[in-house]
C-alpha cells in the first residue's frame, strides 16, 4: 500500500478492480473485441447495401492488398511508441524519401536498382539513427527532433525529385512487390508478416519484454540491466529502417513515387495506430490491433465510397470512428478492470 497511499483515489480504484475481476468476463471481451464486432457489423451493413461490390473478390483484394504502405508506416510508428517515446513524426517523410530515392538513383542516375534500394534504405535508417541520438543522447524533445527531421527529409525528397513524380523502375524489381499470390500482392504478406513478427517479438521474446519495460519505466529497466538507451536508439533506428523498406517496396509496387504524397499518410497512420489501442490489448499500443485497425478503416472508407459518399463524409467517418471506438473501448476497459 505504500505507493497507492500517495494517490488516495487510486486505492479505491485498486479495490474496485479486485472486486470486479471475476464478474467481468463480458467486459473483458467487449473491451478487446468491440472494434472487431463493429468491423463485422460494418461489413454486414455494406453487404446488404452494396452486395454487388462486397461480394466481389476485387473489393477484398483492394481492402487487404492496398494497405501495405500504411501497415509499414504504422509499424515504424509503433517502434518508438512502444519504448515510451512520443510519436515519431518523421516516419512518413522518411518513407517518402526512400521511395523517391530508389527511383531517382535508379532511373535518373542509372544506378543498379538493388544498390539504389539498399542506399535508400540506408539513408532512411540513418535518419532514424540521428533521431535516436538527438533524442536519447542529447535529450532533445522527441517531437521537435522528429518534426524537424521529417521536414528536412521532405525537403530533400522534393529536392532530389525536383517536385515531380518520378517513375520507371525496372519491372523485374517491381515484381518483388507486385507478384500476386492468391490474389494479393506480395506486399500484403510482407506487411502482415512484419506485424506478426513484431507482435511475436513483443509478446514472446526477451527483447520485446524489455521494450515494454523501457516504455513503462526507464529507470527501473536500466537498473535491471536493460540497456535502455540502446533500446531507445534502436527503436528509432528500426523505425527508420522499416520506413525505408516500406518506402522502397511502395516505389516498387507503384513503379514510381512522389515527394508530397507521403504526407497524405499521416492521418491514416495515426488513426490506425491509435485505433489499435482499442483492439486486443485495450489501452496498449499493439501491432495486431494496429493491423486490424488498418483493415477496419480501409473497409469503412471503401464501403462509403461504394455508397457514393464524398470525401467529406469519409473524413467525418474516419475521425468519428476513431474517437467513438477509442472512447467506447476506454469506457469498457475502465469498467472491465
Amino acid at each position, binding site marked *: 500500500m505504500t505507493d497507492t497511499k500517495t494517490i488516495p483515489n487510486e486505492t479505491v480504484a485498486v479495490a474496485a478492480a479486485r472486486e470486479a475481476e471475476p464478474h467481468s468476463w463480458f467486459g473483458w471481451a467487449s473491451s478487446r473485441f468491440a472494434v472487431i464486432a463493429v468491423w463485422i457489423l460494418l461489413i454486414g451493413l455494406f453487404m446488404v447495401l452494396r452486395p454487388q*461490390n462486397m461480394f*466481389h*473478390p*476485387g*473489393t477484398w*483484394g*483492394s481492402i487487404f*492488398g*492496398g*494497405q*501495405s*504502405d*500504411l501497415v509499414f508506416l504504422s509499424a515504424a510508428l509503433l517502434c518508438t511508441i512502444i519504448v515510451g517515446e512520443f510519436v515519431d513524426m518523421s516516419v512518413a517523410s522518411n518513407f517518402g524519401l526512400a521511395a523517391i530515392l530508389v527511383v531517382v538513383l535508379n532511373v535518373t542516375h542509372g544506378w543498379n536498382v538493388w544498390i539504389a534500394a539498399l542506399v535508400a534504405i540506408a539513408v532512411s535508417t540513418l535518419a532514424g539513427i540521428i533521431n535516436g541520438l538527438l533524442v536519447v543522447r542529447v535529450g532533445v524533445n522527441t517531437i521537435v527532433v522528429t518534426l524537424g527531421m521529417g521536414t528536412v527529409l*521532405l525537403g530533400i525528397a*522534393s529536392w532530389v525529385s*525536383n*517536385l*515531380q*513524380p*518520378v*517513375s*520507371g523502375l525496372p*519491372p523485374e524489381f*517491381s515484381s518483388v512487390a*507486385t507478384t500476386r499470390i492468391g*490474389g494479393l500482392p506480395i506486399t500484403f504478406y510482407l506487411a502482415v508478416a512484419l506485424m506478426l513478427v513484431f507482435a511475436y517479438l513483443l509478446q514472446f521474446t526477451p527483447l520485446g519484454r524489455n521494450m515494454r519495460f523501457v516504455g513503462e519505466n526507464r529507470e527501473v529497466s536500466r537498473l535491471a540491466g536493460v540497456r535502455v538507451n540502446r533500446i531507445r536508439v534502436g527503436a528509432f533506428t528500426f523505425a527508420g529502417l522499416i520506413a525505408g523498406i516500406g518506402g522502397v517496396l*511502395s516505389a516498387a*509496387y*507503384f*513503379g*514510381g*513515387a*512522389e*515527394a*508530397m*504524397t*507521403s*504526407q*497524405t*499518410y499521416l492521418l491514416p497512420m495515426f488513426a490506425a495506430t491509435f485505433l489499435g489501442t482499442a483492439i486486443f490489448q485495450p489501452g496498449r499500443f499493439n501491432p495486431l490491433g494496429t493491423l486490424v485497425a488498418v483493415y477496419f478503416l480501409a473497409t469503412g472508407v471503401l464501403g462509403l*465510397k*461504394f455508397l*457514393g459518399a*464524398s*470525401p467529406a463524409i*469519409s473524413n467525418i467517418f474516419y475521425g468519428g470512428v476513431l474517437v467513438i471506438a477509442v472512447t467506447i473501448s476506454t469506457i469498457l476497459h475502465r469498467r472491465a478492470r
Partner: protein
Amino acid sequence: EPPAATTGSESNVDSSLDAALEAVSSPLDAYPIPSEPIDGVADLAGQTVYYVPITLQSPQFSIVSAQLTEALGNVGIDVQVCDGKGNPSDIGSCIGQGTQAGAAAIVTDAVPYGLAANALDAAQAAGIPVIIANQIADENHPTSETLGFVPAGGSDQEVAIAQWITKDSDGTANILMNRTADGPSQKAYVQAGLDELEQICPDCTVTINDVSSSNFPQVTPSVSAALLNDPTIGYVVNDFAQFLQPTQGGVQAAGMIDSVKGVTGSVGVGGLQALASGTYLYAATGQANAYQGWVEADLALRLITGTPAPEYTIPVRLFTRDNIDSIELTEEAEASGEWFGPTTFRDDFLALWGVA
C-alpha cells in the same frame, strides 16, 4: 527599320488579339462533337467503368465524375468512383481494384502515368482499356488500343491568360507566374502560355515562381518575396485556382493588394465568385469540366468497342470582370456546362452512341 511596318504588324497583332479574346470570352455556339458514331454500345449494359480521379478533394473531379456517371448510365454502364486521395497507394489500389473486378474500362483523371505506372500497365495487360484524362499524352506511353488520352484545356487557358494580360497592360505587363510543379503536364501548360507571351508581348516581363502542393505553406512567402523583390509586378497568375488563397495572402502580406491584378486558371464556381466579388481577381479561365466527363465516356466507349478515337479538345473560356455577370454563378450552372456552350451536347453524344 520602317516604323510603319512595326505599327502595321502591331495593329495586326492587336486586331487578332482582340478577336482571340473575344472568342475565348464568349460561350461556344456548339460543343465540338466527334463525327463517327459508335456501334455496339447497347451490348455493354451491366458493365462497370472505374473512374479514378487524383483526388476528390478538388471540386472539378466531382463534376466530371457526376457527368461521367450520368453519361454512361444512359447506356447501362455503372461507374465506380474511387478516390485517389493524392497518393500512389490509393490510386494504385483503385486501379488494381478495377483490374481485379474486370472493369470495362478504367478512367484516371489528372493522374500522371508515372504515379501509377505498374497498376496501369497491369490493367492494360489484363485487356482493360485505360483512359488518362487531364494529362498531356505521355511519350513513353503512346496511345494504343488499350490506352487513350483526354487532353486538358490547360494550355488553352494559359494562352488565354497571356492574351488577356497583354491586352490589359497594352503589352507592358510585369507578371509573376506561379507555376504548379506537381507534374509534367502542368509545366507544359504554363510553357504554352509563356510561348504565347513571347510572341504577342515582347515587352512583357515574367517571373516564374514554382509552387507545389507539397509545399503549400510556402506559397504565401514565395509570392511575397517575389513581389517585394520586384514591386513593379502588376499581374499575379496562378495556373490552378487551388493556390488562389495562399497567393492572395502573399500579395496582401507584401502590401500590394491594390497594385496587383490577380489572374487564375482552372477556375470553378468558388473562384468565379471571388472574381465577381471584385477584390483581387481580374480574370480567370476555366475549362468545360461537365463536357469533359462526357468526352471521357465517349473515349471509354470507343476503346471498349474498338472504335477509332478522334482528337478531342476541351473548350475553355476566359472570365473577366466584364463578362462575369453574364453567367449564373451556381453549382448547377457549372455542372450543366452552360458557361461554355449549349447544354445540348449530351443529346449529341447519345445520338452518336445510338441510344438517343
